[in-house]
């Protein structure tokens, strides 16, 4: 028998209370892990994109307000020697989904000539680029739709647009993207989209956004100013942002959910601390005499302090594990990642989420156990024993 064993046995003393307290830990910890993972996933995307030196130019008011296609050449004209600009790619939101399914893919049409340059992180080989340029119906697809619908390279696939004029188009998969940050994307050629729309009687070649691959961070910053200045006071005023800012904006458009989740998680953690503190206090009160006997037997005050504190920590950590493990498994199993919340692709439990929540559980355990442990340490053995008779 060890002291640890005694501690473990103590947790069995009032099974119902221990279980309830543990569950009170488990639930918010599960939420917390999910929230952290969410926030981390977003931060990760921002960090990855920063390296790409991409500048996004969209309408000053909203993304859904399209810009004329001719803007591309005006932007290119700003840098005739090509010192700052590597390539400009006009993009149009298609909002397609596989017929008879619910999930809208992040499906976007891009300029066939510049797409492979601007999206260099997609990692198209010379062969891929050749296939993309040869086939008007070429598409480049991320891992998630491929896995969901069982597609493979060379397949012919159909998407129906969820925005007017609700085109139904066929595509040939020329490349499957392995880059995890791009797992939700479905790119295809904008010339194909424009012509198909024209066939449907809609003459609209406008773009939602122009992505510009820059040659340096310095170039990116000056371009950003130059472009917005160029179109200022025109009917199509622009706002240029680097990709990072773009993601941040997107996040904001979602009503600052990450921040909200964090706040929520914190509030719940505080509540849990109170619940656990109360449970620990009750469990301490119930056995003041027993702890007094520990002291009478010869256990030092410091050790009795640690015994009570350890019990609280064990309860907290155990409860947290009870929440973190199922949350991790659930996030891993559930296809949340496939719903594709904008640039969010993979919502999975991060190590930071797990370590963070366990660290918080540890803190809560310490805080909840501190007062009872202190009381136990200060316990007047003689008084506690005398109250018996």
């Amino acid at each position: 028998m060890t002291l640890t064993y005694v501690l473990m046995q103590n947790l069995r003393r009032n099974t119902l209370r221990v279980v309830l307290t543990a569950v009170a830990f488990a639930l918010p910890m599960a939420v917390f892990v999910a929230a952290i993972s969410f926030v981390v996933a977003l931060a990760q995307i921002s960090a990855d994109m920063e390296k790409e030196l991409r500048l996004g130019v969209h309408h000053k008011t909203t993304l859904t307000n399209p810009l004329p296609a001719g803007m591309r050449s005006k932007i290119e004209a700003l840098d005739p020697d090509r010192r700052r600009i590597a390539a400009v790619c006009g993009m149009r939101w298609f909002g397609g989904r596989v017929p008879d399914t619910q999930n809208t893919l992040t499906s976007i049409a891009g300029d066939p000539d510049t797409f492979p340059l601007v999206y260099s992180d997609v990692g198209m080989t010379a062969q891929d680029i050749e296939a993309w340029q040869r086939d008007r119906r070429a598409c480049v697809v991320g891992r998630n739709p491929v896995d969901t619908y069982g597609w493979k390279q060379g397949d012919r696939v159909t998407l129906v647009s969820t925005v007017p004029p609700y085109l139904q188009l066929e595509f040939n998969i020329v490349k499957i993207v392995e880059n995890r940050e791009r797992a939700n994307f479905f790119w295809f050629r904008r010339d194909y989209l424009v012509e198909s729309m024209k066939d449907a009687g809609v003459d609209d070649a406008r773009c939602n956004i122009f992505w510009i691959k820059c040659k340096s961070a310095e170039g990116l910053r000056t371009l950003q100013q130059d472009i917005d200045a160029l179109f200022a006071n025109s009917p199509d005023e622009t706002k240029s942002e680097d990709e990072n800012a773009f993601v941040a904006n997107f996040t904001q458009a979602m009503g600052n959910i990450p921040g909200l989740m964090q706040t929520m998680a914190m509030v719940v953690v505080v509540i849990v601390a109170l619940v656990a503190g109360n449970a620990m206090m009750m469990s301490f009160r119930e056995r003041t005499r027993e702890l007094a006997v520990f002291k009478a037997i010869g256990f030092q005050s410091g050790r009795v302090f640690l015994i009570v504190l350890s019990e609280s920590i064990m309860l907290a950590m155990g409860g947290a594990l009870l929440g973190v493990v199922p949350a991790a498994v659930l996030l891993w199993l559930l296809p949340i990642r496939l719903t594709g919340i904008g640039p969010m692709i993979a919502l999975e439990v991060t190590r930071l989420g797990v370590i963070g929540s366990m660290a918080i559980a540890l803190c809560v355990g310490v805080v909840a156990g501190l007062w009872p442990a202190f009381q136990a340490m200060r316990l007047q053995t003689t008084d506690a024993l005398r109250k018996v008779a």
Partner: protein
Amino acid sequence: MSTVDIELRKVRKVYFKDRLEIPVLEGLDLTIAAGEFVVLMGPSGSGKSTLLHLIGGLDSATGGSVRVGDAHLEKMSERERTAWRSRHVGFIFQMYHLVPVLTAAQNVELPLLLFSMSSSQRKERVRTALEVVGLSDRADHRPNQLSGGQEQRVAIARAIVTDPDVILADEPTGDLDAKTSEEILELLNLLNSEFGKTILMVTHDPRAASHGQRTVHLDKGVLDREELNPARPRGAAAMVS
């Protein structure tokens, strides 16, 4: 078999409550010979438990000196007294105070966790202690599966498993029926006569008192009288002192 004597000189104990002095022991003298079995009687609230706690180092006296064997408790810190207690004193209480989630054997093993001892050594000690109290066959029972008398036996085993010199029992039969009380008292007698433990036992029960070699009466802060039990002559060591 090491036997240890106890000597209290001019012991004072004053409690403070709401800044009021509550004197409980006022210049008390008591000598207990090595290997003696002394019974302490007195009205409720007279300070019997207080006296026991002072001898066991659970509390410190306001004045005077308390010596148990070589240990001068009044000169020791609380830490030192606690460490000393774990090796030299076994407490037995009226309400047993066993840990309900541990088995009898585990309860008995508890004090040994403070000793550097291999687990097989500990097991051996626990086995012996349970044998002495006659509960070998209940080693794996939890307290709620035991009768009151059996629980008190486990508590006694827990008190003797460290092989202490002194056993301090605070109304050990206060919660037991006459027959069970008799068995517990016989057990204490055995610990005294066979194992040489010096015992101080608090009781209200005159029949229980008859098991000791000497009875001292505590009243108004001092021991006001004592009587020897002719049926239980004191050991040779006690005669000398």
